[in-house]
């Protein structure tokens, strides 16, 4: 999605943020250091942050402020984090939240 470079009311972003590289599911992307992972991914058009643990259906950010827990994904060295609250760092290896093997639930899903 488009970034807003100069907000018509709020003006440009006050603190200049340095561009950094990161990977998502092994693919290389660029974002801004310190912005939430969810914002960096949305800016490059990635909405699916997680597969539902049981059904595998795609999930994205919902509340964007840490309340709903829908955006949890994995960051190497940090484990499961909320993408909407976790600041992007240079060289981060990020992967989507994964569907779990169904042996855990024992249920068969369509």
């Amino acid at each position, binding site marked *: 999605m*488009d970034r807003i470079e100069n907000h018509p009311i709020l003006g440009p972003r006050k603190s200049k943020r340095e561009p950094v590289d990161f990977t998502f599911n092994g693919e290389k992307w660029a974002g801004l250091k310190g912005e939430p992972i969810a914002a960096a991914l949305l800016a490059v058009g990635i909405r699916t942050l997680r597969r539902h643990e049981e059904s595998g259906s795609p999930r994205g*950010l919902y*509340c*964007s*402020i840490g309340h709903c827990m829908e955006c949890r994904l994995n960051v190497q060295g940090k484990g499961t984090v909320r993408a909407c*609250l976790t600041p992007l760092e240079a060289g981060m290896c990020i992967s989507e939240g994964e569907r779990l093997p169904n042996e855990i639930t024992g249920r068969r899903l369509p």
Partner: protein
Amino acid sequence: MTPAFPFDLLIVGAGPAGLSAAVEAASRGLCVAVVDEFPEPGGRMLGQFHEEKGHWWVGRQVAEQLLDKCSALGVKIRCGVSVHSILRSGAEWVLKTSEGSMQARNVLLATGSAEIPHPLPGWTLPGVMSIGAAQVMANVHYVKPGRRGLIIGVNVLAMAISRELSVSGVSIAGIVLPGIGPITGKEASPKESLKELMGLAHLAPSPLMRIGGKAANALGMAGFVSRFIPRSGIKIWDIPLRLRTVAVSINGRSQVQSVTLADVNGEGAVIPGSQREELVDFVAIAGGLYPLAELASVAGCPFVYAEELGGHVPVHDEQMRTPVEGLYVAGNITGIESALVAMAQGRLAAATISGDTGLLGQHHDQEVQEAMQDVRRVRASALIQFRPGIQEARDQFYRKCGRFQREKNGIKEEG
């Protein structure tokens, strides 16, 4: 990050209530710390702006002024820190956080509110988000939530944020009603939505909205809706407000591609054959707000349900004191209102805490009374009122809480 000494006051939440309380308490000599799990202080004010008498009220500027004062007064602000437990240990509170534990003699919970969703088929698709999420993405992180979006839910929050998104350059296909269902209930009907909108008629510059209030009263709500609101909706700030349209389902394979809309009659029943698809790449659900109060519950504070205040609210008196020793509340945790009211409540809570810790000297009653009057004054003049009759609802709530306190203390009610 365990300090060697406990803070006089630890505030959870760096929004309008928390920061205002921090400034007031620190200026009275208390050693104050603020924690917030968002990476940046300011709370939801960071993304809020609206037009007021010809100029823009910008929440971020208000937050920056408060932060400047905080830093001049030596308030410690820790962001990106989540509080997950609160325990009373002797004369102190111990808060467990994602960065270790913190101790304080007094705790102010200024945790704000969370959004109520309107679940409908397809709402788990990526691209569906709460209206607040769209606001945060566009106005705080400067990333558009999508190219063209539909807002589901007609209320103050939906109107205010749709306007912000539109100003920020995000195309809004319209604001529609959620269908009437087991969760949304009657407020999803055109009749009820219009009633709610009347409370914010003065926020919209559109003369239609202002006339709307009188016309609706004169004609009766259902009559007004069916006679005067065209199917295409009314344009408010160039955003089509479609009071006769409901969202039936959100469609897409791996993300939002469209929303199925349908027309409804004045009572909210779908008109057969009116279904059609609206192409959008994001959907924002606006279900309203409820007080975010889990920590008060963990701390052992009792609750009272107050519909007008947005749900279950921690018991507290008008000075922002809970029945739990050393525990105070301010802002939306006490009921849903605007940022200016939250700020006044923060200042009041700080005055009360300073008084309770003996810092205000002999005039403390007067200072607390003045801060209380200030909250009432700000509330009465608030441009954005989330609910009509909020002061009456507050008065009723305080009476209820007072009764609760007296019963707890074993004092029998008269009559």
